[in-house]
């Protein structure tokens, strides 16, 4: 999008240059003129002009105007310091203080309070009001995480606008009217919604305070440390509030290309995990069945010895919170020092790249090529492209759970610009409400759906599906605007996606693909070589086993050692508990972990892991943006930087990396990943850089990486496994057979270690639930809250029934990541039997 032309206006006699159409309050900043505001917050959408703090005089307009809502024009003459303006602004401060308590000394906001600052700068300095102020019960919990003090509220409406117009949860509302107005919820219920913590930061007074931060620090006690949250793929930019080397709070660090300045509650309150007293802070070695503390030298030697012995019978599992440096060094050890091709970072394999084991029918070389094709810069969309695209397709994922901040971004596109949204998922998505078209395919049939969609979009080599699948695909295709669509997608099966991308001309500006990986740094790990099918830079390597292949091989004894880097496969990977058995058979399990968990219980050597708050390194955002992790707090106890530990381990195994610092590690990556070539911490800077926008990306991928241009991936690979649409298949509709439910699984936002490890979030920990359509529930004689057993092929999961109107009849959904075997039931037809009455 071209930048708007710049214009010149006169503010208090000084010429100021600003972009045409900018709001005066922002334009004035270019001339170092500060115009005070309360309600103005551009992140919340259109200005509302409610607080009236920002009134200024504009030549030619008799009435004072609100600078927050006045777009600047060339030649505009503005006065912000005249008597009239000063009187009006001072009057607004006086009005606000008529009811605002002067309890600054005991208010958490004191010292970082916009009302304090504005009252000092623009207020009358004394009060003429002698009448009683309004009273409320205070402070009361608005949610388990937020306290509300309604007496301090100045009714700027930022928080309720957030609830209506950003998160769109609409739980937080204004109640009553006029000067009796207050902020509240229906029937005094708690306000519990995944983004609600943002209202604390939005509040310009001490009316909304964080329960976890209350009375912990004053602004002069604290330091800010900027880094990136790696609790999910959103990779939001954050500021850690650090006092006495402890994190006390997390705030947003606005990055319009990543997060728009919002955080989810996981990112906001999950810092407590890093401060947990339960952390492993020293290396541990198993002796006599027990893990005991050991020195680093001893632990490294023990690990090296075990790995040396296993040699090529070693596999590495790299968890999603690992940095690029961790992942790169881990795969380098496994590939180069040990000669093993078995490196994996994807909990459920995919996308569309069946490895030797599961995709034996296709040419393995192609699988890598498919990935390269999907990663090509010309098909990549940036997060900001969501602000431009005329249509958005959400495919196979619910961003609220998989990449929460994108949920807000997509809502914004629909709400503010009227972008057309289409949602095609197996499980109902929270975005359905704003979608122009939605389609539901049967659990696990995303590949069939995408192929049908490709056909509807006119991609060569795809046949149009019959029946409902064809009709659904046609509707979705009809909502998508060629050349101006962003597809946000995830899933194990991407066949057909490149066909869709070509048919939709996603190579054009402002269009493209954003893949939501399973792990926070899933994209970075893939690009630095943590895949069984591709090495650093998606290079051609000897093919290794994928996750389930590794598990089976460990179980069978053909693999002997497992290196788990920030990974707990028992919790996070398909198969779940089956991993426990597999790891139990391994001769050596080396786990890098912050906590003792199910996987460390199988470990022979444990290295303490860094939290993201301590880490130095880089991660790659799903849209290709490299971002820097910067240490905000020192490492606790004996915890060491993981790049350093892995470099030492490599050296002990004969792989000299020469890495002596985090920048060295990045340089080593850049030397192997052609599209990261030459990148440095300095270039990445505070807000990151998309590698697709760097010169190095121009030469990648090379033609021999992707093969001929007219190659049609969907036709090349024979459909593998159960996700294939069979000839004459109704197209992956849910079976409409009595008594049969096909199960899908999803990773709930809160089904994560951070929920259990952060006291503030613990109340959100989900219990296993089976979501059913009302019709199926009735047919099975089940009601909400009933306990059931969900069984297939000897696997059984206990769950509580939850009825949802938008679940497709014939489908049922379970939550992954709760430590049970739910993920093993994905795509299976199950039997359901009652195990108890509702609580």
């Amino acid at each position, binding site marked *: 999008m071209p930048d708007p032309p710049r214009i010149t206006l006169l503010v208090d006699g000084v010429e100021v240059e600003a972009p045409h159409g900018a709001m005066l309050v922002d334009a004035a900043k270019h001339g170092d003129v500060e115009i005070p505001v309360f309600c103005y917050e551009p992140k919340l959408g259109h200005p509302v*002009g*409610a*607080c*009236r703090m920002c009134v200024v005089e504009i030549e030619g307009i008799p009435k*004072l105007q609100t600078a927050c809502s006045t777009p600047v024009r060339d030649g505009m003459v503005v006065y912000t310091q005249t008597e009239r303006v000063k009187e009006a602004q001072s009057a607004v401060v006086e*009005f606000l203080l008529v009811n605002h308590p002067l309890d600054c000394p005991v208010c958490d906001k004191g010292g970082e309070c916009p009302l304090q600052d504005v009252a000092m700068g623009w207020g009358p300095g004394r009060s003429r009001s002698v*009448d009683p102020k309004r009273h409320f019960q205070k402070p009361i919990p608005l949610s388990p995480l937020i306290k509300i003090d309604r007496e301090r509220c100045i*009714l700027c409406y930022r928080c309720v606008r957030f609830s209506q117009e950003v998160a769109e949860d609409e739980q937080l509302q204004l109640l009553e009217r*006029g*000067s009796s107005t207050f902020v509240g919820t229906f029937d005094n219920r708690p306000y519990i919604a995944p983004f609600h913590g943002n209202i604390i930061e939005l509040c310009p007074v001490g009316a909304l305070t964080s329960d976890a931060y209350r009375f912990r620090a004053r602004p002069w006690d604290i330091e800010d440390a900027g880094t990136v949250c790696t609790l999910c793929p959103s990779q939001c930019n954050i500021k850690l509030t650090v006092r006495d080397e402890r994190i006390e709070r997390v705030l947003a660090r606005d990055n319009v290309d990543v997060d728009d300045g919002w955080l989810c509650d996981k990112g906001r309150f999950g810092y407590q995990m890093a401060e947990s007293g339960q952390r492993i802070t020293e290396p541990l070695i198993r002796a006599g069945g027990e893990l005991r503390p050991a020195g680093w030298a001893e632990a490294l030697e023990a690990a090296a010895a075990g790995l040396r012995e296993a040699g090529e019978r070693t596999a590495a599992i790299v968890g999603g919170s690992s940095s690029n440096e961790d992942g790169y060094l881990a795969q380098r050890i496994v590939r180069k020092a040990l000669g093993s091709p078995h490196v994996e970072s994807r909990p459920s394999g995919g996308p569309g790249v069946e490895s030797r084991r599961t995709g034996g029918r296709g040419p393995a070389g192609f699988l890598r090529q498919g990935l390269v094709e999907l990663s090509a810069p010309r098909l990549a969309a940036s997060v900001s492209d969501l602000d431009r695209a005329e249509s958005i397709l959400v495919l196979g994922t619910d961003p609220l759970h998989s990449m929460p901040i994108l949920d807000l971004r997509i809502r914004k596109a629909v709400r503010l610009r009227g972008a057309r949204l289409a949602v095609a998922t197996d499980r109902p998505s929270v975005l359905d409400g704003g979608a122009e078209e939605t389609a539901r395919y049967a659990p696990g049939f995303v590949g069939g759906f995408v192929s049908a969609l490709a056909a509807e979009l006119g991609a060569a080599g795809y046949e149009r599906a019959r029946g409902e699948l064809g009709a659904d695909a046609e509707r979705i295709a009809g909502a998508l605007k060629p050349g101006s669509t962003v597809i946000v997608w995830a899933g194990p099966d991407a066949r057909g996606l490149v066909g869709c991308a070509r048919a939709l001309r996603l190579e054009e500006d402002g269009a493209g693909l954003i893949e939501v990986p399973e792990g926070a740094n899933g994209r970075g790990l893939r690009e630095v070589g943590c895949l069984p099918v591709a090495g650093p830079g998606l290079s051609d390597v000897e093919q290794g086993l994928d996750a389930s292949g590794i598990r089976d091989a460990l179980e069978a004894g053909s693999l002997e050692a497992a290196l788990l880097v920030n990974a707990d496969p028992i919790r996070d990977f398909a198969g779940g508990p089956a991993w426990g058995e597999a790891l139990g058979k391994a001769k050596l399990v080396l786990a890098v972990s912050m906590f003792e968990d199910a996987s460390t219980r199988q470990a022979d050597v444990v290295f303490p892991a860094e939290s993201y708050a301590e880490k130095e390194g880089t991660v790659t955002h799903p849209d290709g943006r490299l971002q820097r992790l910067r240490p905000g707090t020192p490492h606790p106890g004996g915890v060491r930087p993981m790049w350093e530990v892995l470099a030492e381990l490599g050296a002990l195994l004969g792989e000299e990396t020469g890495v002596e610092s985090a920048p060295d590690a990045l340089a080593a990556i850049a030397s192997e990943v052609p599209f990261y070539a030459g990148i440095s911490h300095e270039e990445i800077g505070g807000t990151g850089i998309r590698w697709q926008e760097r010169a190095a990306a121009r030469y990648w991928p090379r033609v021999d990486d992707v093969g001929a241009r007219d190659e049609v991936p969907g036709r090349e690979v024979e459909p593998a496994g159960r996700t294939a649409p069979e000839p004459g298949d109704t197209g992956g509709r849910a079976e409409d057979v009595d008594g049969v439910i096909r199960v899908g699984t999803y990773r709930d936002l809160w089904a994560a270690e951070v929920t259990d490890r952060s006291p503030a979030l613990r109340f959100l920990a989900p219990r296993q639930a089976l979501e059913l359509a009302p019709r199926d529930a009735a047919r099975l004689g089940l009601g909400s809250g009933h306990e059931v057993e969900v069984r297939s092929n000897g696997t059984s999961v206990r769950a509580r029934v939850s009825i949802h109107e938008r679940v497709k009849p014939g489908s049922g959904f379970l939550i992954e990541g709760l430590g049970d075997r739910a993920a093993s039931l994905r795509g299976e037809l199950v039997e359901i039997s009652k195990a108890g009455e509702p609580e």
Partner: protein
Amino acid sequence: MPETRMLYRRVDEPGLASIETYRRRGGYRSLTRTVKEIEPEELLTTLQDSGLRGRGGAGFSMGKKASFLPRGDTDKFLCCNADESEPGAFKDRELMQKNPHQLIEGVAIAAIAAGAGWAFIFIRGEYAEVADILEGAVAEAYGAGFLGADILGSGQRVELVVHRGAGAYICGEETALLDSLEGKRGNPRLKPPFPAIQGLYGGPTLINNVETLSNVPHIVANGADWFKGFGTEQSPGTKVVSVSGCVQRPGNYEIELGIPSRELIYGLAGGPPEGREVKAWFPGGSSAPVLTAAELDLPYSFEALADAGSMLGSGSIIVADDQVSIPALALRTARFYHHESCGKCTPCREGTNWTVKMLERVLSREATPMDLDIIASVQDNIIGHCLCVLGDSMAMPVSSMVKKFRPEFEEYIRRVASDSPGLGSDGAAGLHALTGTSSLAPASGPHA
């Protein structure tokens, strides 16, 4: 001087609210001509040429407003503002109650002129019985083919919905009305964008008052020149004026603008009860600065009242006679706006609240003359600084009362030394403050 009845013609004829009687009196002929004979541009020209000014308060040219709507295919809307809630105003209620088809015909013609396929009559929820009448009439009009997807087979479409409010004065403000009609709290919007460009559901929207639209069939039937033969050059046509308070015959009177105000108050409405004099009067609803007895001979017109520092507004006169306590009147006035402030913008929300508290202290004799200065200054801090005019609507009359009757306020406060109990912060018994008596006038009206 008698009334000039155009909208009120045969107002009490039995059955006028039914479509049969209305049609027998020539009703819907203008609409019929509109869809069959008149081009929309010609219609717009006629409305503009007639000089009809909005009767809701702002007095903007109706035809010009309609002409601001962009032409073309976008979905456009017409909203009839029937949220008449200004204290002292009750003309729209009577017009709708007695002659609903006159309005419906006007709405349909105006919608066609503006190219609006959807029209809404936003009627305040309190007018439930009038809304019932309107809904009945709308159903009749649909039945007779005057509304709907294909009016009289012409291909013109106007869907008309009677939308009931639920008790909020602010919804009479046109942008708050739009928010309310969209299912929100009735909060005024920032302007620009103006409704003509971006109004209901984001589409171009024409908003007109009941009385304004009720004029439209007459203009179409008789032409712009005929219409300009009534009233003044700046404000042609008639005006229905609501007169209430301390007068002997409160009610609506249809007049031509420009007649002396005294004629309205004394001549038509009978003036204050025997033996009493006018002390203060609101010439244009309770938001108009009050005038005194000395100003009774002002011509009743937009211009003359504006020159006198007040306004004609919706055309509603409230008369307070010489027995009325002005501080108590000020409190009643302020309380209303405080109650009705939507709370969106600071000066109105806090200013009305603070003003009420200060006036309550005046009434309970806990104030000092300095408080009168603060009251006046707070009004100045409200005026011109709010998001919409509601804040000003309190500040202007209250400010005018403090300025014009300051000695009465001061005298009131001075009595603090005496053992007189005052009126209590409530001001509930506040009518006859000056006489010092707490006995109330008979409920049938103090001056009857």
